[in-house]
């Protein structure tokens, strides 16, 4: 009897949940619920094989590696993760789950092997794609692991250098040229100009 009451209550609560969902729809603007977070964290943990988790970075850190990884990150990763790893970009904020602030423990507590695996193989049910072929020996990916470990060391000058390397759409390039012409004294069309979409 008690089991039946529990079941009916559960179905009723689920019905209310379904009604709310149908009435409001789904959006990636809202943060994941606690249940979704637990499910996703479990999936992320399961995503990385034990051996891969224990892998260590075979690429020695050097100023050259630091510079190369900054340029690589600015070109391939910053659209979602932001140059400073905060995830505070239009794309990063709109993802579900949103791009993490990689300077924080959620990312920094992962092993080098985990970070490498995630970059190489991506993460299911997130916006993180697989960037590599899946092998364990992609030096560029290991350099990115060094970069992630040093996010808090980035200087304002380095962030500006990275900003110059961020991908731009043809529209954004045109916009920048128009800005330069305007600042130099030429008359150019319209303002304000949306920077996004």
């Amino acid at each position, binding site marked *: 009897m008690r089991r039946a009451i529990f079941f009916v209550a559960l179905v009723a609560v*689920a019905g209310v949940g379904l009604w709310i969902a149908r009435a409001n729809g789904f959006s990636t603007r*809202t943060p994941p619920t606690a249940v979704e977070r637990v499910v996703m964290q479990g999936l992320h943990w399961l995503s990385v094989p034990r051996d891969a988790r224990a892998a260590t970075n075979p690429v020695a850190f050097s100023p050259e590696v630091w510079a190369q990884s900054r340029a690589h990150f600015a070109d391939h990763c910053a659209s979602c993760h932001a140059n400073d790893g905060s995830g505070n970009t239009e794309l990063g904020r709109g993802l579900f789950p949103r791009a993490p602030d990689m300077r924080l423990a959620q990312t920094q507590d992962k092993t080098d092997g985990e970070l490498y695996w995630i970059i190489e193989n991506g993460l299911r049910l997130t916006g993180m794609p697989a960037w590599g072929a899946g092998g364990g020996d992609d030096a560029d990916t290991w350099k990115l692991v060094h970069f992630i470990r040093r996010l808090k060391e980035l200087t304002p000058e380095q962030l500006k250098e990275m900003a110059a390397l961020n991908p731009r759409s043809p529209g954004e390039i045109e916009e920048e040229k128009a800005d330069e012409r305007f600042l130099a004294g030429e008359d150019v069309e319209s303002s304000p100009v949306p920077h996004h979409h």
Partner: protein
Amino acid sequence: MKQLLSIIALVLAVGAGALAHNGNDHVRGTITQVSAQSVTVQLADKTTKTLSISAKTEFESSGKPGHLADVKVGDRVVIDVPEHGSSALLIKVGTAPKK
């Protein structure tokens, strides 16, 4: 039974989420007023827009890091503002308009 419970849990999780956007805008114009708290810009269509200045506002003059003191009435500026916001993130200062 387990499958049913999983489906119910998923519906609850996603349904709750359903209960609960964004880039930078670009403002291009000529400075008509400037103070420590805000700048007012006249746009190409002759309307004006006032944007607040905060400790986080950055300045750039002739492509180099600048200061609020570089912003003067009559200067051409390009200002980055958060979408739907009114706080200047970056003010790029150009030349005064040709007379």
